[in-house]
């Protein structure tokens, strides 16, 4: 079994990607700018994968920034109050995000597509409003507040250490998602996605599993959000912005919905494109290019960039049955 696994092209790709992730920041091209780009890429890989986990259960969200942001606020407030290291508080912050995710999930599990999209979108706006109005004595309103950095910037090579720590967290998150999907939970989620009525007939409780997917997704998104703000060292309510809700959607669609590799590939390709276009000075054009790309992919490549690899890799036995 393991010998077979290591010979398959998929395993080679995974190993190659892992090796590239370890070696890349050590190369001479990796200056502070490149390192920052890589760190953000890792954070968004975690975030997009969290969003993608939700689509396994046939749900979608246009307001995942709610969980991204809550993870950030909760983690930073805990870190400031208790003086604990951000490496501990991100998990506590994410737990808070997951708790809110559970509550939001309770209202969402009965809703379908458009309603779900609207309600999740709405929750992000409601949470942002609560943070800037009622909670502004704690959160500083629109101005935000400074938060402890992951690794203090006076430590030599702090960005490099930060990169590797986030790299490990990203690997662990992907592994956790992989294990969830391999287990009977993943099967149940797929059954619900394909046909909720039949799944119920087979003895699967859709509400329980959808809630589980929602909570797990919120937890991982919370980790990503907490990592981002502890990386920047500052948090503002902008973190709940519409754009931050849309990014994981764009990344996952580009890469391929409902695959583990999709959000990873999508995040890398789109954010490289994004930063490349930015460097070329195309401030507005890049949004247009991303928008056109998104529509082209939905129409002509509905299973994302990953399906390209599968299409050509089929003869080597790496292909999977199309949905």
């Amino acid at each position, binding site marked *: 079994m393991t010998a077979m696994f290591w010979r398959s092209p998929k395993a080679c790709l995974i190993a190659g990607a892992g090796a590239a992730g370890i070696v890349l920041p050590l190369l001479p091209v990796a200056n502070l700018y490149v390192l920052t780009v890589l760190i953000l890429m890792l954070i968004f890989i975690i975030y997009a994968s969290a969003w993608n986990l939700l*689509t396994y259960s046939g749900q*979608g969200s*246009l307001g995942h920034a709610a969980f991204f942001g809550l993870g950030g606020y909760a983690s930073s407030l805990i870190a400031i109050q208790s003086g604990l290291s951000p490496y501990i508080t991100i998990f506590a912050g994410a737990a808070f995000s997951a708790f809110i995710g559970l509550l939001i999930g309770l*209202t969402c599990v*009965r*809703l*379908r*597509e*458009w*309603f779900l*999209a*609207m*309600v999740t*979108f*709405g*929750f992000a*706006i*409601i949470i*942002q*409003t*609560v943070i*800037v*109005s009622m909670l502004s004595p704690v959160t500083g309103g629109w101005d935000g507040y400074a938060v402890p950095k992951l690794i203090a910037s006076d430590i030599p090579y702090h960005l490099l250490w930060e990169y590797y720590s986030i790299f490990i967290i990203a690997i662990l998150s992907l592994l956790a998602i992989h294990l969830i999907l391999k287990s009977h939970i993943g099967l149940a989620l797929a059954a619900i996605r394909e046909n909720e009525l039949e799944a119920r007939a087979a003895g699967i409780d859709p509400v329980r599993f959808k809630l589980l997917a929602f909570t797990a997704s919120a937890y991982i998104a919370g980790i990503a959000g907490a990592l981002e703000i502890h990386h920047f060292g500052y948090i503002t309510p902008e973190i709940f912005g*519409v754009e931050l809700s*849309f990014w994981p*959607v*764009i990344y996952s*669609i580009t890469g391929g919905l409902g695959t583990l590799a999709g959000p990873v590939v999508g995040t890398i390709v789109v954010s490289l494109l994004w930063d490349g276009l930015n460097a070329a000075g195309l401030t*507005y*054009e890049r*949004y*247009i290019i*991303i*928008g*056109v*790309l*998104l*529509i082209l992919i*939905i*129409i002509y490549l*509905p299973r994302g960039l990953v399906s390209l690899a599968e299409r050509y890799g089929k003869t080597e036995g790496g292909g999977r049955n199309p949905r």
Partner: protein
Amino acid sequence: MDIGILIQVVFWGLYAGCIYILLATGLNLIFGVMKIVNFAHGEFLMLGAYITFIFVALTGFNPYVLLFATMPVLIVTGIIVERLCFRPILGTGKLNEIFVSLGLIYIFQNVVALIWTDEWRIIPSPFVDVTVSLGSLEMPLDYLIIIFLTIAILSGLYVFLRKTHLGKAIRATSQNRKGAMLMGINVERMDMISFGIGTGLAAGAGTLWAVSGQVFNPYIGSIPAIKAFAIVILGGLGSIPGAIIGGLLYGIVENMATFTLGGAWKDAISFVLLIIVLIFRPTGLFGEEGE
């Protein structure tokens, strides 16, 4: 609360409701025929405001008159968007529409930002300082014209859908797509036409909104569109009377909430309302159980 202020707030709500009604009616018409939801509907509102802005700058005519030049431009835009972006994904899953709309939002906002920059713009109304007083109620003339124009546009739409051959074909497609097809109606043409009309209504909303003294930039479209969609959900998907009643209620509730809770809640209150409704009725107030 003083009764005079209450009436004033209701009147503002009525005016805001008109904008929402035009948007929601368009969304509902499109949903009725195509069974899709265009989340980028607000971008047509924004584009409508800009097209009118350009026409005003070029001709110097009264913006209310130019409304009827802007709407055809947007109808054509809508038809092109339907043909290029929505027809290929019809029937491929509801999440895809949402994703295509996301792409459209990015494209429209930034094409407009490229052409006209993202500065705040304004269309000066010729009646900016004119108000009509009715007892303690102060009514800006612009608001009255907007309420009147909305009624006129909606009446026109009603006559079109009820009396003309094309309107009847659209309604037939909306009621039963297969049946309409069997009766020799070109349903894909109906898709294009109803999408175009919906877009035109959004352009009307955008123009009226801008002329009533609201400043606009390329990013203003999303929030009104989301609110319009919330109204559509409240009023029931595909029900145009539902959209009209929902839009009026919504405009009034929103203005009341802003007045009592403070401006920060202006956008959020709509979602609170929406979520409360959906908790008790997951398919909307007047939605069908089976949807």
